[in-house]
């Protein structure tokens, strides 16, 4: 006899159970739906943002086979162009100047192109005059001709023939809209001008930012690497994709993992609900086993229930996830507030593979949550279960602790393993193993914690009964609590991590923002030496330290690091440089650089290492400094060394120390007035307190979505406590009936249940908080450094910990009382007759 031949009977049993307990089915399906929805939504938002970001990159790059890119906004010498154009395997090459421009305060990416070369290599970037493609050169070589994409045209509210004032690189020029860029994708704000005009009018003479390359058909890829100078590198679609992926990958993976927490909690809720359902049906299962259903028929029954819960929940979850993603994109933006994709609108892109993946995960959570209790039920001897379904509690049965200890040890071991492909996969495995170990050890923990209480005497009967029930049946308590312990542990872990991170950032900001005012020039422009000298003479200023910050590409498939040129105090401690490590010895003829902690971890550099940068000069790492602002790494070079290496004397930022008694507002006004007229409206001045507040607001915004996800996980967990406690309480109706027969008052039963609930909440709180504390160590000291490349000390949010514990105790006690009132509402005689 097989399960297939018994499928009619299985169908009756499953159908009957659902008709009898539809709310249980609905609750568990909703728990899975929420988990799937959150995971899918976060994934969709991230995927859509990334695909839009890559789309924008592709648009700006046209359709070249290869690009030679400048490693920094300083560009490279245009003398490279003929060498690339004539290299073996190159069919054609098109030089490009890239400018971050503003037209009437609206940002536009301005490309300077040689229209004849671009027509061969990147035809999608060639402008079209109202009368058709302009290849004769009437307008194309006109140094005032500007071609705009549809989005740029819309943004600046212009039409062909209009005259526009364009500002870029600190220069301003008036240009005429000569036509459109029909090859540019919708939504991308791009302008194209003649390359000579770009160099001449915007101070880029002799410099290029990119050379687009077309390969010869059938020829081997050109070997350009050997002819490139240090300030140029080769890029391709593949390396661009890797780079844009690396920009936010750790953040996205962490969000995905966090979203899966809700799904995991949903899985635990299914486990709780199915465990109780199985416990309630133990005699029914024993009966059908006695009547001839094979052992695996019981497993199949419960697993099929789980499968159906999974199918319903996961389907609902996908629909809800899509709606959530849509709403989240509209409300929080493409990066859910983290600031990775600062610009551009994002269209929601459906991801079929992710949908299938999350659907499968939902099914897995529901089926796994069902199979475990089903296997336990299938192992129960049917004859004994038929007679004694309700009397299986034996306080003498020892609670196993070994499986929990083994899982915890494995988790600890996994935490010591390195990242894979830059992702802390072992770190996440470690958290999952520790969590599983904690859940597996719950019965033992509950028994151990309650043992001293169970030996006490002289308590009231209800309290005594409550303690003895929990002490005698800790596995039941663990079943009720596993969902909430999981979500509490993860919430505490996240809260500890966020508190540690925020505290570290706050402390660091206090250390590095040691000056009185900070000035910054926006829009890619900068202060030339004359402007710098003029600002120095503003009254009320004691000192002004100029700096320049540019992105510097060290590897084509990695996001650029920030190169910061600024004065550095070397004969004593520099208050604005929080050094983690430093060294003094340096070979002659080398310049010192100070690398940020993320740069050290990303590129494997340490103090004393010689480093080759894509600017002239030889450099040695003189120190590693703490930086929580630039995840992709930063390098500080002395301003004098930077100027010597690049010839660039422009500075974009300044830290200002005021004279004693000077009024900051007066100095701010004077500085703004002293700035060159071309920079009007581009100079921003802020005080440390404002910067600190802004930085912490940004931090909180980027973690807002994590708070939301944690909150949902906690709600799902609390719903699990409510559902399981109420089911457990109702399952004890006969016990309450017996108690009332022997003279226990209803009020005393309610007291007993409230005590049980509060104790359960307390045990769950202790377990969840302890587990969360351990998992937080993995987050802070393993996952965070491996994901974001920065380290920090642990800080514990005692207030949140106390609130969570209190909420758990109140919720568990309240639920138990409510369920108890329902369970004892019937008369005592009928209660003892309840057979199933």
């Amino acid at each position, binding site marked *: *006899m097989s399960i297939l*031949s*018994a*499928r*009619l*009977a299985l169908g*009756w*049993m499953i159908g*009957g*159970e659902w*008709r*009898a307990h539809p709310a249980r089915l609905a609750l568990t399906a909703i728990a899975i739906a929420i988990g799937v929805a959150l995971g899918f939504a976060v994934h969709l938002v991230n995927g859509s943002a990334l695909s839009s970001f890559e789309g924008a990159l592709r648009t700006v790059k046209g359709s070249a086979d290869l690009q030679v890119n400048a490693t920094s906004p300083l560009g490279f010498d245009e003398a490279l162009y003929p060498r690339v154009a004539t290299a073996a395997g190159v069919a054609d090459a098109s030089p490009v100047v890239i400018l971050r421009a503003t037209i009437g305060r609206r940002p536009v990416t301005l490309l300077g192109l040689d229209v004849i070369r671009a027509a061969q290599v990147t035809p999608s970037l060639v402008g079209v005059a109202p009368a058709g493609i302009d290849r004769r050169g009437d307008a194309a070589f006109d140094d005032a001709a500007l071609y705009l994409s549809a989005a740029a045209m819309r943004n600046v509210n212009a039409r062909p023939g209009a005259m526009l004032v364009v500002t870029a690189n600190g220069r301003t020029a008036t240009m005429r809209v000569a036509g459109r860029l029909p090859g540019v994708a919708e939504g991308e704000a791009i302008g194209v001008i003649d390359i000579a005009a770009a160099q001449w009018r915007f101070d880029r003479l002799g410099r290029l930012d990119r050379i687009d390359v077309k390969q010869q058909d059938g020829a081997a890829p050109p070997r350009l690497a050997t002819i490139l100078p240090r300030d140029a590198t080769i890029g391709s679609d593949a390396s661009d994709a890797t780079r844009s992926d690396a920009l936010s990958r750790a953040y996205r993976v962490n969000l995905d993992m966090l979203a899966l927490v809700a799904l995991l909690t949903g899985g635990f809720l299914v486990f709780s609900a199915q465990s109780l359902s199985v416990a309630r049906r133990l*005699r*029914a299962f024993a*009966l*059908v*086993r*006695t*009547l*001839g*259903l*094979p*052992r695996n028929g019981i497993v199949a029954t419960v697993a099929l229930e789980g499968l159906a819960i999974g199918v319903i929940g996961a389907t609902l979850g996908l629909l809800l996830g899509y709606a959530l993603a849509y709403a989240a994109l509209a409300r929080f933006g493409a990066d859910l507030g983290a600031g990775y994709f600062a610009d551009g609108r994002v269209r929601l892109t459906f991801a079929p593979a992710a949908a299938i993946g999350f659907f499968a995960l939902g099914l897995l959570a529901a089926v796994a949550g069902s199979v475990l209790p089903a296997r336990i039920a299938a192992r129960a*001897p*049917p*004859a004994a279960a*038929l*007679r004694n379904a309700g009397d299986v509690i034996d306080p003498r049965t020892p609670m196993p602790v070994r499986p929990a200890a083994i899982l915890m040890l494995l988790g600890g071991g996994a935490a010591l393993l390195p990242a894979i492909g830059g992702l802390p996969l072992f770190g996440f495995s470690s958290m999952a193993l520790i969590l599983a170990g904690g859940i597996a050890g719950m019965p033992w923990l509950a028994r151990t914690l309650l043992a001293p209480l169970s030996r006490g005497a002289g308590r009231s009967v209800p309290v005594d009964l409550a303690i003895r029930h929990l002490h005698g049946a800790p596995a039941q308590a663990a079943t009720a609590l596993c969902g909430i312990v999981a979500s509490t542990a993860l919430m505490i872990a996240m809260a500890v991590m966020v508190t540690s991170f925020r505290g570290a950032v706050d402390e660091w900001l206090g250390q590095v923002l040691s000056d009185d005012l900070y000035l910054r020039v926006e829009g890619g422009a900068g202060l030339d030496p004359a402007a710098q000298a003029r600002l120095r003479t503003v009254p009320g200023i004691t000192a002004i330290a100029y700096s320049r910050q540019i992105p510097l590409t060290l590897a084509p498939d990695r996001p650029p690091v920030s190169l910061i040129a600024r004065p550095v105090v070397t004969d004593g401690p520099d208050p604005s440089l929080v050094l983690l490590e430093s060294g003094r010895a340096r070979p002659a003829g080398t310049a010192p650089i100070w690398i940020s902690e993320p740069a050290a971890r990303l590129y494997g550099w340490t103090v004393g290492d010689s480093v080759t940068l894509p600017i002239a000069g030889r450099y040695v790492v003189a120190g590693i400094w703490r930086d929580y602002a630039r995840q992709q790494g930063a390098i500080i070079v002395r301003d004098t060394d930077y100027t010597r290496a690049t010839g660039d004397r422009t500075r974009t930022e300044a830290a200002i120390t005021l004279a004693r008694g000077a009024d900051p507002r007066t100095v701010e006004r004077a500085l703004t007035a002293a700035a060159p007229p071309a920079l009007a409206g581009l100079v921003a001045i802020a005080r440390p307190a404002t910067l600190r507040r802004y930085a912490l607001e940004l931090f909180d915004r980027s973690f807002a979505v994590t708070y939301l996800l944690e909150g949902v996980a906690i709600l799902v967990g609390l719903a699990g406590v409510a559902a399981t406690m109420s089911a457990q309480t109702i399952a004890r109706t006969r016990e309450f009936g017996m108690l009332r027969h022997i003279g226990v008052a209803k009020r005393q039963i309610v007291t007993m249940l409230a005590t049980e609930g509060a104790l359960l909440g307390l045990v769950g709180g202790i377990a969840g908080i302890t587990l969360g504390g351990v998992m937080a160590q993995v987050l802070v000291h393993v996952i965070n450094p491996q994901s974001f490349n920065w380290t920090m000390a642990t800080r514990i949010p005692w207030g949140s910990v106390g609130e969570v514990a209190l909420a758990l105790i109140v919720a568990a006690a309240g639920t138990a009382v409510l369920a108890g009132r329902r369970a004892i509402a019937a008369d005592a005689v009928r209660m003892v007759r309840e*057979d*199933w």
Partner: protein
Amino acid sequence: MQDRALLRVTALEKSVPGGRQLFRGLDLTARAGQLIAIVGESGVGKSTLLNILAGLDAPDAGHVAIEDTILDTLDEAALTRLRATRIGFVFQAFHVLPYLTLRQNVALPLALVSNDRRAIADQAQAMLARVGLGTRGDGYARDLSGGELQRVAIARALVHRPALILADEPTGNLDPDTAAKILTLFSDAVREQGVAAIIVTHSAAAAAIADDVLTLTASGLERAR
């Protein structure tokens, strides 16, 4: 048909885990249409004997054969198949599943081995009618009295035409009048279908309807009547 032995038990021995011997040298034969009552003090091992006869528990020594099948030669799957096809059960606590209709409850043994809905429903309906509940097939357990629930249980025990019915205190939860009616129904059905039936009971009324009454002691079964 009366001569055909449907149950043969030879030299059965069983001890409880603590080492106390429940019985040894137990022999028993039940023939088609024969109803045997087993009585004895509480704790003597009556229910354990029933569990061994059903293949739910294993003896320490001896053999049980149902029709020509010796139980100790069967693995768990075969024992399960045997219970589904050749044994019927009646319990003291009825064990009528509350979330199935009465017809589904009766049909459960058939539905474990077949998916022919029509035939199963017809057989279950016929058996419900046989126990006097022909009009109640769409009802549920909560609509029934104790006696009616036990009728459903008897119908379920007989519906798949087993060779052997094992009944554990079938009237233990019923009042004397109802119990008498149930016992009559049970014995009539057993004889009508030519089934061998073993009843474990403390009830004198239940023992009275049996063809043989045996007392279980530590040394085996002794004829009481």
